[in-house]
């Protein structure tokens, strides 16, 4: 092949790639797709690096998906003037992140710990897998990876097809739902609009999900497949004491350095809330966390203003309710926990 033909081949290749990507992007947008960031190690690392902001300028949240859906960043910023630092990990226990922050002598900030009992007290190795992976990613971050994160963010903010959970080749192959072999677990497919991830790691439901009761049912079924909320205490006795001891040691370390820790029980509803009450009686778990650690706690069920939310799929708030809940949470932090927000706007 002559150099001229090679050049033609390269030019046509570029045109074909551009044409396909432009068409794909336009098609997805017309189908209601929106930007969603890959909620992996790089995004976690960006947030993790912000925990050293002065105490009066930021609050760090750890936990599982509920705090990511329920704490609205814009409302938080607007009302407190602070930067919310989101370190919660979906489907995971917050304990590895708590231990990591406790062992970091430079962390002296305010910390909110979301307690979703089934995950907080989980003894399943998988529930710590992602937090451990992300923490390791942050600590081992190379200069090249830092640069890649900086270069990647504008791309993810621009193209909706870069939603890895929905439009990567593997995600699309998974959607084929080829029947699996007997005894092999198939992770359920979540509706596309159930979860979008912002650059600051906040999760939110898209309008397509909020307005569609069929999708609510799909997600409720998915939660059933994934465990459906506990019906009996999976952890007690020495194992529970041991976790509580580790939690206390960690919160003590943070408080000894001048930081502060508040536990938060974010809302759930319907079948989930019923099962959670059965599986994790409040006095045996929530109250024991507070007693053992001596930290303050905010339980959604204690306030008539927050005890009535209907979570569409039993477990997470809609964006609208998240705004309302965040306002109340800030009020509780100020009034009940004595947190000072230097630029607190009227609520």
């Amino acid at each position, binding site marked *: 092949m002559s150099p001229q033909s090679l050049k033609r081949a390269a030019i046509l*290749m570029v045109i074909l790639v551009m044409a396909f990507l432009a068409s794909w992007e336009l098609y997805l947008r017309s189908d209601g797709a929106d930007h969603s960031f890959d909620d992996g190690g790089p995004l976690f690392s960006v947030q993790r690096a912000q925990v050293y902001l002065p105490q009066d300028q930021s609050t760090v949240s750890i936990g599982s998906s509920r705090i990511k859906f329920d704490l609205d960043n814009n409302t938080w910023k607007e009302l407190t003037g602070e930067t919310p630092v989101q370190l919660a990990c979906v489907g995971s226990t917050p304990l590895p992140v708590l231990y990591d922050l406790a062992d970091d002598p430079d962390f002296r900030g305010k910390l909110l710990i979301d307690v979703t009992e089934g995950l907080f007290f989980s003894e399943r190795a998988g529930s710590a897998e992602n937090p451990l992976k992300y923490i390791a990613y942050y600590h081992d971050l190379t200069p090249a*990876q830092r640069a890649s994160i900086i*270069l*990647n963010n504008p791309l993810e903010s621009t193209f909706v097809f870069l939603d890895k959970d929905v439009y990567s*080749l593997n995600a699309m192959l998974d959607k084929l739902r*080829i029947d699996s072999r007997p005894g092999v677990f198939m992770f359920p497919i979540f509706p596309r609009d159930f979860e979008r991830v912002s650059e600051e790691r906040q999760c939110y439901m898209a309008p397509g999900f909020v307005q569609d009761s069929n999708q609510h049912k799909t997600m409720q079924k998915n939660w059933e497949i994934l465990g459906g909320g506990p019906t009996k205490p999976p952890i007690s006795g020495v194992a529970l004491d041991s976790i509580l001891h580790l939690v206390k040691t960690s919160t003590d370390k943070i408080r000894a350095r001048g930081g502060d820790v508040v536990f938060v029980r974010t809302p759930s509803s319907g079948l989930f809330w019923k099962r959670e009450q059965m599986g994790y009686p409040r006095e045996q778990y929530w109250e024991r966390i507070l007693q053992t650690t001596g930290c303050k706690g905010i339980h959604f069920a204690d306030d008539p203003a927050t005890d009535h939310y209907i979570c569409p799929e039993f477990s997470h708030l809609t964006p609208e309710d998240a705004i309302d809940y965040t306002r109340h949470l800030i009020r509780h932090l100020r009034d009940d926990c004595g947190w000072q927000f230097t630029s607190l706007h009227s609520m």
Partner: protein
Amino acid sequence: MVFNSYTFIAFFIIILILHNLPFSWKVKKINLLIASYIFYAAWNPPFILLLWLSTVVDYFVGRALFAQTNLTKKRLLLVLSLIGNLGMLCFFKYGGFLLENFVSLVNLFGVDFHPAEPNIILPAGISFYTFTTLCYTIDMYHKRSKPVKSMLDFSLFVTFFPHLVAGPIVRPPQLVPQFETPRQATTKQIIDGLLLLSLGLFMKVVLADSMLSGTADSVFSFAGPLATADTWMGVLAFSGQIFYDFAGYSTCAIGVSMCLGFVLPENFRYPYAAIGFSDFWRRWHITLSTWLRDYLYIPIGGNRKGEGRTYINLMFTMLLGGLWHGASWTFVAWGGLHGLYLWLEKIIRDKFSKPSTRPVMATAGVSLNSGQSASFIYALFTFFLITLTWVFFRAESFTQAWEMLGSMFGITSDGAALLRSIDIIKVWVIISITVIVHWWMRDASVLQLAYKIPWWCLSIVWALIVLAIILVQESGSAFIYFQF
């Protein structure tokens, strides 16, 4: 910095622009050298010091070795270089392993010795650049080539970023002359280079990372016995992953160099079409196998000291080759198994092979004379035996390796089913296509094939490759061979 990252794309565009500006050749080489240090420092900046140390020591020792006429002094200089290079490698790569084995040994004799666990970080690519610098000083000792004239050229030879961290392992005569005269890539070289870079990224990002690594990781990290089908799929997935990961890197490295006007040696030649194990090592990690042949196997006697010594030399070379890959006895076992295969092949070849005037295509007495279908069956059998060796290569321990082999051959029963149908389909399709393509292409090259097809057809295939790289959305994971 890894090829499969946005950082590298930005870095490479800047380098290409700088390299094509009207600077003097010396300035261009300085640019390339600085770029290579940045490329390396993007992992862990302090380890640049090791690279400098290795470069400076070997540059001066190499010159002294070439000029020295006193044999004793010459040997001393060679020992100095070997201690410097292998000492660093031993400390960083094998320090923990040696200590662990020393502790086990003294404990065996009743000595209660429990030192603190060393926390040594392995500098990326140390095994590769150590072998690069070692071959230079050994060549100087034997006066096989002339010393590199300038420190700049020698530094660039050691540090040139495409090959620095995972090869191909280059010899001075392959690369140094290319730095001596000004070079600028032609349009054809740039397009060829970009095509190879795309292909290498496709192999790494799409096939190794996106399609195969998940299955291999799940199977090799599963605690407990697995069903036979699952274990086979996991091991086959790893066979594909390790090839596409490493060959992908080499293809990228060759492509990147080509865009800058330099030629790096071929490192893979469709190894899963090998007929026999000598043939496999002529196709897999070619620059390492030839390095081991020229700087280890032949110096210790090769096949010149009788039949018995040939077998011992062969095994010794393969055991060390295994250890080069990682500080663990499982890697030694992997090398040992290859050594054993080579022994058996040699026995069969010596016993059954008849002298032929026609070119023998491969080894083990099998030639194309045997017919295409018979040769293909031999190639499949070779692939099957090679696949078994990967169990030791990837397993964390011998216990795990034996358990997996037990499961693969039905010795262990009641193993759990782990993989979904889609995972099995992916592995099956990719591995089948890989073996067929390797067989079909075994004596050809990608670029030759690309030149044969119509230009618009090349465009479509190339576009599909690039689109697959973009759409799999896997980036930034390290290449497996960086850890070696």
